[in-house]
């Protein structure tokens, strides 16, 4: 039993980390009143951004021993953040500056982002002239997958809590910092005010558009990190088209599951990661029942959504102006 848990828990965590990044980014975005359905696309963009950075760096340094550990991590991370920022900016420009419909813009951004990822993925595969439709960046990925040095020596404790890479711990730090920011700081209060009632926030002297831009762009960059974590760490630097799957939508589901709280999202991401792979650990399950099991995260989300709306506790509801564009002169 304990042995199963010992192998189950770390796998649930590594499955959950991309979702944690995605949902943390989306929570920050939604707190500003922007329902960014482009997150799945942005996560693809972040992933391919990292791959492009790693690819360029690996090609410029032919010998493995010459790879600079700092640059090998820094360059992919920067290109990932830049590309995800581009996604966030497109979304903000259309919905905040041009006041376009958020749902339509988000879906268009997802179409664009997934296409962007797959197109550049396929182009890189063609550049390398490989036979299989995937690209392997194992040399830079080795720096991403580095685990804590003392994990091995700590036995089961090390395996459960110390066997992850720096990006995994960073995800948890991001979520905790965001929770404190939203709950305990003036900036967080202002941001929540914008999401609940932009007109009131505006009257109180908060720059609504600036808050929306900042929250959405930073949120997009955080979500993009989920993409790079998936490729460079979870998949060991192997990019294959459509490999990321529907994790982006799962991240949006996780936002609801965590009732818009980043600290709950840490716990939620491990639950979702576990639900995602639990079928592997149930002995004697047929292929077809596995398909039914993969439904679990979504069913759980629906149940949470219903419960939240029935109980109508104020602190658990979505931001009141979620999905609505704000125009000062509109009344």
């Amino acid at each position, binding site marked *: 039993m304990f042995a199963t848990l010992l192998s189950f828990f770390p796998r649930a965590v590594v499955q959950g980390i991309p979702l944690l990044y995605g949902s943390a980014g989306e929570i920050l975005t939604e707190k500003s009143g922007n329902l960014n359905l482009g997150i799945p696309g942005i996560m693809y963009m972040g992933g391919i951004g990292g791959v492009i950075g790693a690819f360029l760096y690996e090609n410029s340094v032919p010998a493995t021993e010459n790879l600079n550990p700092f640059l090998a991590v820094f360059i992919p991370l920067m290109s990932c953040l830049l590309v995800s920022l581009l996604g966030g900016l497109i979304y903000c420009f259309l919905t905040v500056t041009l006041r376009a419909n958020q749902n339509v813009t988000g879906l268009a951004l997802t179409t664009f982002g997934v296409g962007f990822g797959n197109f550049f993925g396929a182009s890189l595969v063609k550049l390398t002239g490989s036979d299989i439709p995937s690209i392997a960046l194992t040399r830079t990925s080795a720096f991403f997958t580095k685990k804590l040095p003392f994990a091995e020596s700590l036995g089961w404790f090390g395996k459960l809590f110390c066997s992850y890479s720096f990006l995994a711990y960073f995800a948890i730090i991001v979520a905790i910092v965001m929770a404190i920011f939203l709950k305990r700081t003036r900036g967080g209060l202002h941001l929540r005010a914008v999401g609940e009632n932009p007109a009131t926030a505006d009257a109180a002297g908060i720059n609504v558009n600036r808050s929306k831009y900042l929250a959405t762009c930073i949120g997009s960059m955080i979500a993009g990190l989920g993409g790079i974590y998936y490729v460079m760490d979870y998949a060991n630097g192997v990019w294959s088209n459509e490999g990321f799957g529907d994790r982006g939508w799962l991240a949006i589901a996780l936002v609801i599951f965590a009732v818009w709280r980043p600290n709950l999202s840490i716990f939620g991401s491990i639950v979702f990661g576990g639900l995602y792979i639990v079928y592997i650990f149930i002995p004697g399950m047929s292929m077809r029942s596995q398909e039914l099991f993969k439904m679990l995260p979504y069913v759980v989300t629906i149940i949470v*959504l219903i419960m939240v709306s029935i109980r109508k506790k104020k602190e658990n509801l979505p931001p009141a102006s979620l999905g609505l564009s704000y125009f000062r002169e509109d009344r």
Partner: protein
Amino acid sequence: MMNNEKKPKEPLFHIAKRPAISWQKAWGIRVIAILLAFLFSGLVIMMLTKQNPISVYATMFDGCFRTEAKFWQLLQEMALLLCVSLAVTPAFKMHFWNIGAEGQVLIGGLATAACMIILGGKISNGLLLVVMIVASILAGAIWALIPAIFKARFNTNETLFTLMMNYVAIQLVSYFAMVWEKTKGAGTVGEISFGWLPRIGNNDYILNIIVVLILTVVLYIYLNKSKHGYELTVVGESENTARYIGINVNKVIIRTMLLSGALCGVAGLLIVGGKDHTINSSIAGGRGFTAIMVSWLAKFNPFYMIATALLLAFMQKGAGEISTVYGIDKAVSDIITGIILFFIIGCEFFINYELKFIKRHKEGE
């Protein structure tokens, strides 16, 4: 605002809502946006692929119109996309964000396939068709009814609810695809030999197209000329107004979503019974999401949707051709579609608002 000349920083322009704009002008702006979008994506294509964008566009055109079969396929793709777009329209007009069309289409298709597999060969073909039609409509409607009830009763967020229902539907279909698999371990159903929708003449495509065109006209009348259509428009504009004039809002929400789901079910029927003759989790093919954009771009007018559906179907068919001719990945179509959508979405701003440039050093008007 104009008299206030002592103000240190005056903005260059301010934004005001346009009162109303003639439809010629509105469509003029949209056409300009589409042309700009093609120009911009041409530049992107040139940068990404080093191909001449004009020849790329010519190839896309070729891929849709070169042979009669290609042209019919384009029309069929347009019709199916249009059908899903029609389905989501009444809900959107009511400001109910049904982004679960993908799942509703899948469930409609699943019900159709279930009838074809279980009843095929046991009852007469005519009766089977009737059962298929009823089953697909019912299945789609029920899938849409679930979020509608919770929306009406508890005001549960419908965007997120319908989105999640998509993935439940996808997994259900994957499950049944394995239950009904043709050869053990294949995981695919293969071609089902019973319950094909009839062909008209010698043409595989025309029945789907005719059905969808009839639905277009019917939905136009329903939305614009019927009491139901009026009621759902009022609910969409303002729920309080609707309550005030005695419309039962909950009833309208549920009724409209039943219609929306039923039409999605029909789309599933047309895809499974009239085109693919099989079932798998990708038969909806993202149409549920694309349809939202088709419907929104057409301002919820069923006749305009024919044009917007054609545009998006053209992009998809054309991109398939590009990828085979130039050897670039077909994902390029998603990039171009995305860019075009961004431009069209953005141009709505210039239809609804105008920029008033502030004249400096002059007396106010």
